[in-house]
């Protein structure tokens, strides 16, 4: 089974950990142990091929700025999360994408842009079109999710797997390859 390493980035309070916890545990429970080996690991089936996701969530440790390059180095796919009820968190996400490109040193890194907290529609500060426009500029998928109301959470993690699969394939647009 293929294993994928996904890094979740975004500023504090955007709900990164809620997305991760929702995905790995499926529910909010009374007691669990986040220190165990496979806590951040989950099997999912994407386009009828089973795979294992290991999530490196930076939630709670955003202040450890000097560690970000190390985490990026270890990741294959990236979920960039902002809160759609917080304009600042949307601004914060742009330098993080730049940093990923700088560390990975190529532009086609598998990335998904995510606006979280879609359940708080009435407090929205970032419109869907703003999010979509940024994703288009980056050439990456865009999603709006809610960890709280379990909207699009599994879809998000399935999509990042797809992105990593595309990236792993030889580039079809490359004239050299198609000629071979």
């Amino acid at each position, binding site marked *: 089974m293929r294993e994928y*390493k996904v890094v979740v980035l975004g500023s*504090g*309070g955007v709900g990164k*950990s*809620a997305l991760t*916890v929702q995905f790995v*545990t499926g529910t*909010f*429970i*009374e*007691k*669990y*142990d*986040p*220190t*165990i*080996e*496979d*806590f*951040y*690991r989950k099997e999912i089936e994407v386009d009828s091929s089973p795979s294992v996701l*290991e999530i*490196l*969530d*930076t*939630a*709670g*440790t955003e*202040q*450890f*700025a*000097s*560690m970000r*390059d*190390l*985490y990026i*180095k*270890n990741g294959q796919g990236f979920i960039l999360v902002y809160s759609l009820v917080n304009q600042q968190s949307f601004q914060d996400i742009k330098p993080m994408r730049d940093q990923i*490109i*700088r*560390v990975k*040193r190529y*532009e086609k890194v598998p990335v998904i842009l995510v606006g979280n907290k879609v359940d708080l529609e009435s407090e929205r500060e970032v419109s869907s079109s703003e999010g979509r426009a940024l994703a288009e500029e980056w050439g990456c998928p865009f999603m709006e999710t809610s960890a709280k109301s379990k909207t699009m959470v599994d879809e998000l993690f399935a999509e990042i797997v797809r992105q990593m699969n595309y990236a792993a394939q030889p580039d079809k647009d490359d004239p050299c390859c198609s000629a071979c």
Partner: protein
Amino acid sequence: MPQTPPFSAMFDSSGYNRNLYQSAEDSCGGLYYHDNNLLSGSLEALIQHLVPNVDYYPDRTYIFTFLLSSRLFMHPYELMAKVCHLCVEHQRLSDPDSDKNQMRKIAPKILQLLTEWTETFPYDFRDERMMRNLKDLAHRIASGEEQTYRKNVQQMMQCLIRKLAALSQYEEVLAKISSTSTDRLTVLKTKPQSIQRDIITVCNDPYTLAQQLTHIELERLNYIGPEEFVQAFVQKDPLDNDKSCYSERKKTRNLEAYVEWFNRLSYLVATEICMPVKKKHRARMIEYFIDVARECFNIGNFNSLMAIISGMNMSPVSRLKKTWAKVKTAKFDILEHQMDPSSNFYNYRTALRGAAQRSLTAHSSREKIVIPFFSLLIKDIYFLNEGCANRLPNGHVNFEKFWELAKQVSEFMTWKQVECPFERDRKILQYLLTVPVFSEDALYLASYESEGPENHIEKDRWKSLRSSLLGRV
């Protein structure tokens, strides 16, 4: 009065929850148990459970756990006020004739509770409302006939005041340090000769440097109060109960200061590596820090180890391919493998357990040292808090969660009390704490100047950094 035993004794690995309820029944006075473990209860019942009476004194693990977690529901001064009120009530409830007798029985217990509170959560008493209540209750106890109580009360107050004074002093030192540190690039531009001084000229022995790093780690750790882990959530997550807001002025920020130290150490490592103009010197610097990192691992100083690894993995350093080609990296590969984030930092967690075990059976203070990789501890606690509800659907406090939280924090409390066995070297410590470091931009600039850009992204960035930082095109 019994001396406070070390925290490790409080939470043993098998059943850290030793707050047993004797009866076979599952609920008692608003508290719910399963297999004798307290699972949940109403906030009121939990407060009652904290307050001693003539024939009851709460378990120490319970005292710690509740004092730690209750601040998610109410401000410590509100809890203090309730505790005082209940203590006085317990006294009054007694028959007026046997008042003195009752007082004699209950006073030492109240005093012990206050002593535990002041010893474990001294920073709570920066709040003058807390202090006022403490003094009131202490006065009540000391005004009794028993001379011994008076002495114990005095001891408790002196100890608390000492701790608060030490905290203020530490805060002043931190403020001084942060006001003196400037950007290294500014220093280089104004005083180019300062490039002569690097870490190796200050301390050429990597083992000594690892020991001095351990000094800084243990000092900073020691000032962190257990409640700061919980405060971190309160501040990030405005609670449903807005009464629990902390007054900014009295809030300690020792945890933040420790995080800043971690970042500083990473940037210092990256700065020292990127600064030398000659490839040979950069390679020597990398090898030096590999040796420092290895010694940190041997000491059990996982936090400095990880900060050094992070510094070496910062892009401006890791992109220096020609430099790295000159470095023997076998030792570094092993260390990186130890701290690999894969499988939820499985390798590190195993090494940490080993160090914790060694610490338990240690004969010397050197063997006692366990300095955890702090960022991961914070993250574990963060996810514990995020993933489990504070209250059950019936409104009761989910105490199971807080046993788990207390277990994590109390382990840390044991480790932070270790005394550093190494001799202090003022000159080295001063350099580590105050020497200016490069900003991220300056690091990239230095890196590009040493080994030119390899693609158009890097080229563009180099150009823009040259113009913004050096004023050159």
